[in-house]
């Protein structure tokens, strides 16, 4: 049965869906957000339980294929060395994120002008800066002002603790004269907006039982709902429908019982992610849009960017207390962020220090790698390793390439029979060289910090957290999917606000920029309400 029409229908309740919903709520329009997952109960998060390390491999696994919940959709990732990491539910992937919250740099919006690769963004850092600041105020960002790697910016919470591990690694950077800084972290280090302060549980990436981590179910959504936005959970949108004039007129979705429903809407905003959004657009074929909705350019699903990650880990001869503190947020270094062509590649990367592993992960990792033997030597070797390792992940900028794609799998479908996405992705030569450079520098700094041995790997396989570029923004309809304020070139009442509209990926985590863009698009819509579809 058709539901009452709504003014704005948002698809996806994650990082960007929450931000755009909150911002548009002050228009007093009727806004509904459909989310295929449900609300997550913090009492279910692994850190409530003794077997928390084991639970991270199960229903709170970052990979949807491994997690395999009814609310997940499968992804064919066989043709990609980097596997998808996400979460489907209110809060989206912020439920399982590490809460790293760096902004892009001014140079990240001018890649072609500066480095003669990829494309410039149609907007710049200055345009987004007020939205970064607004997003920081809504989120609560722990950090320290004065970072020489960024233009001046305010922070609103004290930085996360260094811990013994962070101080040890900072010493290595100082020894080499390299940049480091406490990570901007979307973590309440003091009580903030009804959230209690971080108590250093450790594994942020399996959900924050304390509620200190800024997942959008506890940041934007309570405010948006209080302001009148309705969130409908367990609603999986299969198709955005269009009328004879080529305007979006609503969606077809499956409810919790698997019943197909129709929802009419005046405006549709897609807030999936760099995989979910092109999947939905490609599944929304019609006589007017036979190649998928908003796809006249042919670029929906193309230019997929991940961030190729490396890891480097060092073994130290003293306990580092690495199981304490936000697992993914400690300090970072942007010494090698800006382009230096003498390194053999363009663009750059951020080194992000990670804290140590828990007792089970230490044993499993050690046994599987052969570092910790079975038998009489097990205990002695384990003692040499446990709580004595520290290291980093290194997040490298990816560049857009047409052959890296999200398409529809011809066979694989989700539990509602909707075609699933298929990923085809290869690392560029630029990425390979950047990874090599980053691993060498990572080893160098860990040795300078006092590591007795180091190990590394690249690219990290289970690290497809950031999916970008598959419906990119631009002023040229022939070379982009949405315009410079997020509206589809083809469909005047269709907007996209997630990472798929990125033109380039930068060498930092994208969520801060995704949300700033969502706020910017919302603001652009509000300023044009009288002639939004012109």
């Amino acid at each position: 049965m058709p539901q009452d029409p709504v003014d704005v229908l948002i698809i996806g309740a994650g990082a960007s869906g929450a931000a755009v919903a909150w911002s548009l709520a002050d228009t007093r329009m009727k806004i509904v957000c459909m989310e295929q997952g449900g609300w997550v109960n913090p009492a279910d998060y692994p850190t409530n339980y003794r077997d928390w390390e084991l639970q991270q491999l199960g229903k709170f696994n970052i990979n949807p294929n491994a997690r395999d919940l009814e609310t997940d959709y499968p992804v064919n990732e066989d043709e990609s060395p980097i596997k998808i990491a996400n979460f489907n539910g209110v809060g989206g992937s912020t439920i399982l994120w590490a809460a790293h919250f760096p902004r892009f740099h001014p140079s990240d919006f001018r890649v072609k002008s500066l480095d003669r690769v990829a494309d410039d963004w149609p907007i710049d850092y200055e345009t987004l800066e007020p939205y970064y600041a607004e997003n920081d105020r809504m989120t609560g960002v722990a950090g320290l002002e004065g970072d020489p790697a960024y233009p001046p910016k305010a922070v609103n919470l004290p930085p996360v603790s260094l811990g013994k591990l962070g101080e040890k690694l900072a010493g290595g950077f100082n020894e080499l004269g390299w940049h480091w800084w406490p990570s901007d972290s979307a973590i309440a280090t003091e009580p903030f907006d009804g959230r209690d302060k971080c108590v250093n549980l450790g594994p942020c990436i399996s959900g924050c039982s304390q509620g200190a981590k800024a997942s959008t179910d506890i940041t934007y959504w309570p405010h948006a709902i209080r302001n009148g936005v309705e969130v409908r959970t367990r609603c999986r949108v299969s198709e955005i429908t269009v009328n004879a004039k080529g305007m979006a007129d609503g969606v077809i979705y499956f409810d919790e019982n698997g019943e197909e429903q129709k929802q009419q809407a005046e405006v549709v905003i897609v807030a999936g992610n760099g995989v979910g959004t092109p999947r939905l657009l490609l599944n929304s074929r019609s006589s007017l849009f036979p190649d998928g909705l908003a796809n006249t350019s042919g670029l929906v699903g193309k230019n997929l960017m991940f961030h190729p990650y490396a890891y480097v880990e060092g073994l130290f001869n003293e306990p580092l207390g690495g199981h304490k503190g936000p697992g993914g947020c400690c300090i970072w270094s942007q010494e090698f962020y800006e382009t230096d062509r003498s390194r053999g590649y363009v663009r750059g990367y951020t080194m992000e220090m990670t804290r140590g592993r828990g007792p089970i992960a230490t044993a499993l990792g050690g046994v599987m790698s052969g570092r910790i033997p079975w038998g009489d030597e097990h205990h002695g070797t384990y003692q040499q390793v446990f709580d004595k390792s520290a290291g980093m992940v290194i997040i490298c900028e990816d560049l857009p390439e047409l052959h890296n794609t999200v398409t529809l799998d011809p066979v694989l479908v989700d539990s509602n029979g909707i075609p699933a996405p298929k990923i085809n992705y290869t690392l560029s030569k630029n990425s390979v060289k950047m990874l090599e450079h980053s691993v060498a520098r990572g080893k160098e700094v860990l040795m300078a910090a006092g590591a007795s041995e180091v190990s590394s790997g690249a690219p990290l396989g289970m690290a497809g957290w950031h999916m970008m570029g598959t419906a990119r923004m631009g002023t040229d309809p022939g070379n982009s999917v949405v315009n410079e304020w997020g509206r589809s070139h083809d469909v005047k009442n269709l907007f996209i606000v997630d990472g798929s509209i990125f033109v380039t990926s930068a060498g930092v985590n994208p969520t801060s920029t995704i949300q700033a863009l969502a706020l910017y698009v919302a603001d652009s819509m509000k300023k044009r309400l009288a002639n939004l579809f012109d």
Partner: protein
Amino acid sequence: MSDIVSTDSPFTQEQKQTLAILVDMMIPANDVMPSAADPDIFSVILSYLADAAEDIGKGIAALNALSLERYKKSFLTLDDESRGAIVSDFMAQYGEPVMQLQIHTVSSYYMNDRVLEALGLEARPPFPGGYEMEPSDWSLLDPVRAREKIYREI
């Protein structure tokens, strides 16, 4: 309806004996640490392995077959040295059951109260207690603060 709670194990006594030997070979006791075959730990291992009982059962059968082929004796009747040789070959050949056994032995062992306390850890989940962290020494940042900006102006 019966109100008896079943405690039946999917493993036979012989299978349990074999598994106890295997986990003890993997993580034996020393002066401080218990063996993975310690009853408190072993019972947890068995409960986790129950879901993979069929694979584990096949694995144990293959282990015995290997033992009979090489020594004309069942695995349980071998001496320690022969067991070690057999298990080494077996672990290299039988991926899935060996993987299951390793994961659940490690997980059950390093969740055990005595093991955690021997490692100097509190035997509890991270929440709600959390962990105290020492104050940070921000003077370490002095040399970085002294640098000029390192981002590119546009």
